[in-house]
């Protein structure tokens, strides 16, 4: 794999204002707070975290579906933070989580996939457009007769295939996959994961794969970033991360995953985290994980840990890296 950065975000921030308790009170939710990472061409970067940690917001902000509060977004070396997006929409696409809500129920599958072709004027005439739609549907394992049907006639897995075909319609280079399999049945998930992998091989795609299921993310990703309350807490090669994680949060996340193997799960030493994720409106001072961290001390409350490179390609934000080791 060539190590060329295709997409990069620097100090990305996404703040939402919400009304507070008082009448004139305004509060700010720091959904994504100072996040920096890059995705190399042809690789898959996984992003995991619990609900509300900002992983989806990161994906959407990166595509400027929501305008960032602050920070920089680079595509292929060019700053696109304030650029006109239309040409870039052909290069960057997204597959959404819920295949039931993300397809217009009043459009046929052919039109859903064809809409992008129309917008970007990728077909010279009707025949070409139809051929392209059929080609795209067959690429995702559907056939030409499906083009005239409506989304409600399909099962969840098939709908997600339509969503993927729509994303592929413009021949993109980069796709944000926002929890693309969590709404699907277990036996269908593997089909879709395999399809993502095959498409990547065939078309040289680059993915940002967002999910809460670490096993799936590890399976598909080259590198993984772990988010907690709007911050990246650890980022490393996917094997390095699953076997030699440094951050206490990543460790507890890994140990909390139920293993589909009775013997392992009986003997496993679980690190069961106490308490809940704090509210992002009022995150803890210093390190945001400190309220649930077994290693937390005074310093964690006062000083925010820096996200730094611990070993080659392995980044983490923690004051107690030596102790955790």
């Amino acid at each position, binding site marked *: 794999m060539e190590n060329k950065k295709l997409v990069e975000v620097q100090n990305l921030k996404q703040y939402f204002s919400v009304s507070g308790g008082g009448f004139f009170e305004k509060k700010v939710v720091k959904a994504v707070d100072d996040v920096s990472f890059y995705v190399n061409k042809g690789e898959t970067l996984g992003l995991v975290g619990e609900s509300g940690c900002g992983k989806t917001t990161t994906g959407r902000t990166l595509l400027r579906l929501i305008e960032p509060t602050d920070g920089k977004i680079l595509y292929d070396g060019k700053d696109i933070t304030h650029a006109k997006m239309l040409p870039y929409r052909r290069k960057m696409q997204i597959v959404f989580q819920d295949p039931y809500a993300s397809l217009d129920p009043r459009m046929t599958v052919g039109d859903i996939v064809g809409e992008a072709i129309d917008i970007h004027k990728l077909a010279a005439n009707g025949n070409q457009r139809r051929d392209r739609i059929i080609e795209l549907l067959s690429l995702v394992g559907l056939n030409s007769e499906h083009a005239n049907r409506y989304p409600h006639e399909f*099962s969840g897995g098939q709908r997600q295939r339509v969503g993927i075909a729509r994303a592929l319609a413009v021949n993109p280079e980069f796709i944000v996959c926002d929890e693309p399999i969590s709404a699907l*049945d*277990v*036996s269908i998930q593997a*089909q879709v994961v395999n399809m993502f992998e095959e498409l990547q091989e065939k078309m040289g795609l680059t993915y940002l794969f967002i999910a809460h299921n*670490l096993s799936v993310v590890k399976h598909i990703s080259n590198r993984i970033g772990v988010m907690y309350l709007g911050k990246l807490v650890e980022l490393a090669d996917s094997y390095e991360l699953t076997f030699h994680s440094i951050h206490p949060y990543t460790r507890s996340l890994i140990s909390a995953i139920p293993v589909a193997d*009775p*013997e392992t799960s009986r003997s496993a030493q679980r690190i069961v985290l106490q308490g809940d994720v704090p509210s992002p409106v009022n995150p803890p001072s210093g390190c945001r994980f400190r309220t649930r961290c077994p290693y937390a001390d005074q310093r964690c409350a006062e000083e925010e840990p820096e996200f730094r490179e611990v070993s080659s390609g392995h980044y983490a934000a923690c004051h107690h890296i030596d102790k955790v080791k």
Partner: protein
Amino acid sequence: MNEYLVDIRNERLSFFTPAGEVKSLNDVSLTVREGEVLGIVGESGSGKSVTAYSLMGLTAHPGRVIGGDIYFNGHHINMMTEREMRKIRGNEVSIIFQDPMTSLNPVYTIGNQIMEAILLHTDKNKKQAYERARELLTLVGINEPDKRLKQYPHELSGGMRQRVMIAIALACEPKLLIADEPTTALDVTIQAQILELMIELKNKLGMAIILITHDLGVVAGTCDRIAVMYAGKVVETGTTDDIFYHPSHEYTKGLLLSVPKLKELEHKKLIPIEGQPVDMLNPPAGCPFAPRCNSCMKICLRTMPEYTDLGKDHYSACWLLDKAKFEKGEVQA
């Protein structure tokens, strides 16, 4: 009665929808012993929740039990009136639902909702019920019970609400707790807390649990026995170890192979189960899994296989296991 706390025999349950009859349960038999944890795994629409709900007499309109018998703790459930059912529900058998956000009433306090079950099923007066509610909250690991009892559901986090649900379910020390996807709506770290709590409470109070889930990881660590359901059928039952280490039904095998393992050193391609889930309005004639099965034979498409006894409570419904029929030449590959 018999040795089983729950004994479901050949249950058939259909939903009579405008589009036609949906045979949600097609000849389902299940047993649960006292103090045992049974996991029911299956995909959406496989009938796992419907089975559990019918055990509580909670089959929703237009569904109806149209055959078979359901026995629970000496009661013949499908012959009981609604009035009789109410005495059992929340008392001898309770349920916790998937979504703790919607299963609590938003306009009543937590205390009110826990006390409701206690006042309904015991002779306790309000003051004693309040004491019991406090006790229950402490039992499920909620700090400051006095403060929490006065709060409304929206003031609590998802994990906390599920704990409250468990407290309500355990209010009358039921013999059986049905947990319908209790952790699906929760984050992994919270899921680990809730599963740990449920097992801890089971050991303390000695009730049986039916744990319904689609996550094989969840059942592996918690259940004694597992029933695998597919399209309204129990296709395989056995001890947790048998199901994971000696799966005999092709669907179970496929399911186990299709999940990625976190602690795997090399990148192996996933082996998915091909095809789409069964359309329950037009189910296949024979084995429901046959259209997606790699070892499908002619007979599979025509006739549903019987259960083969594989010893130690391990049963599986697959023609491949029916050696006797093979030898007689009744089955052709």
